[in-house]
């Protein structure tokens, strides 16, 4: 049969055969391998970028400070109302400034300023400037100045205040609409407490 074809046709057949073998091998075997290699290369690049980002985070001093900052903010804005701690903090502030707490009446928490506020009606009695100092003490327990968190206790804010003369000589009675803040989530169980100073 080979003898029947002439040299030119044989030459063409040989060229076609070689081309077929080369193309078939390329598309069936080599090309998929190269595609896989390219995909792996991309994955390695992505993983390296992620690793570099994480290592930058691990080496940055600011990232390590955030744990301390969170601990302080959790003290100022705890996850739940923690009314017992509110009472303890108010009592400490009262004894420090020389006023007497006559009653504490917390209400159901309400959303406020991106957090939850536990509204408290607080009755205190004392001298004029001691009541002023008591409010200063409440305000200075937690504050943020230029992104710097300074926390000694709970974050409090006074919305309203009313002062009248107390029957006890020389003393004033003050009603404060106080808010104790918490970081969203659990609701407080309203309760009324009258601590002994």
């Amino acid at each position: 049969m080979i003898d029947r074809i002439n040299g030119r046709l044989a030459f063409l057949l040989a060229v076609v055969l070689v081309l077929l073998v080369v193309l078939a091998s390329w598309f069936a075997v080599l090309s998929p391998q190269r595609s896989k290699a390219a995909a792996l290369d991309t994955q390695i690049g992505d993983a390296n970028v992620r690793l570099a980002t994480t290592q930058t985070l691990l080496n940055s001093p600011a990232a390590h400070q955030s744990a301390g900052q969170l601990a302080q903010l959790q003290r100022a804005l705890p996850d739940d109302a923690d009314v017992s701690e509110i009472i303890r903090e108010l009592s400490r502030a009262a004894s420090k400034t020389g006023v007497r707490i006559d009653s504490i009446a917390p209400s159901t928490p309400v959303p406020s300023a991106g957090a939850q506020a536990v509204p408290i009606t607080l009755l205190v009695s004392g001298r004029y400037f001691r009541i002023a100092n008591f409010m200063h003490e409440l305000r200075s327990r937690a504050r943020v100045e230029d992104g710097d968190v300074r926390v000694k206790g709970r974050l409090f804010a006074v919305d309203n205040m009313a002062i009248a003369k107390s029957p006890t000589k020389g003393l004033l009675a003050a009603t404060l609409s106080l808010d104790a803040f918490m970081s969203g989530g659990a609701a407080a169980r309203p309760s009324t407490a009258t601590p002994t100073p």
Partner: protein
Amino acid sequence: MEAVNLLPLQARPGRRWATVGKDASPRRVLTGGAAVACVAVVGLGLAYVHERSVLNDQRATLAAVQTEVVAADAKAAPIRAAQSGVAARMPAATTVTASRIAWESLLADLSRVMPRRVRLQTLSMQSPTPLAAGAATPAAAPATPPGSTPTPSVGSAPFTVTGVATSHVRVALVLDRLASLPWLTNVTLVSSTNGASLAAGDTFSVNAGFNPGGAQ
């Protein structure tokens, strides 16, 4: 005279390929083609082996990098949790801190401007922007036993003060002094009433608008 091309047929222009392989043996051509194809297959096989080796190296590299990423992520997880906790609380803390009123400064201002021979009996101040605006008012103030401290109530105006002065002129002075405070607006006399006796003095009541931002 007629021109004659002396070049052989395959060398003439336009006929270069016309005689390629015409004289070659088909068996030899095909054998040669098969040999070239075999060489090509061997070459491609070697290239495949090389690509496989590259692929294996890349897989090993990827596995190593991913192990490092997992280890680094595990170390970074507490830091990321802390950062998200700070991000959740910081805006609220900043807003509350910025919105709070320094009541102690206002009380100090008030005591500074009050004229002599004037006594305040009640004082009430309401924040124009209370932080717990939606809060329900406590249903009832705690019961006050007879003879114990009464519960002062918050007045209807943002700033309300009542007191006793020795004369109406003193009440006028109170109005002027209150109007000088930057955090009070529209200082208004509600009433000034003569007392029952000379010693009782004049009872007055003053309302005002309250702008604590003016105190800063």
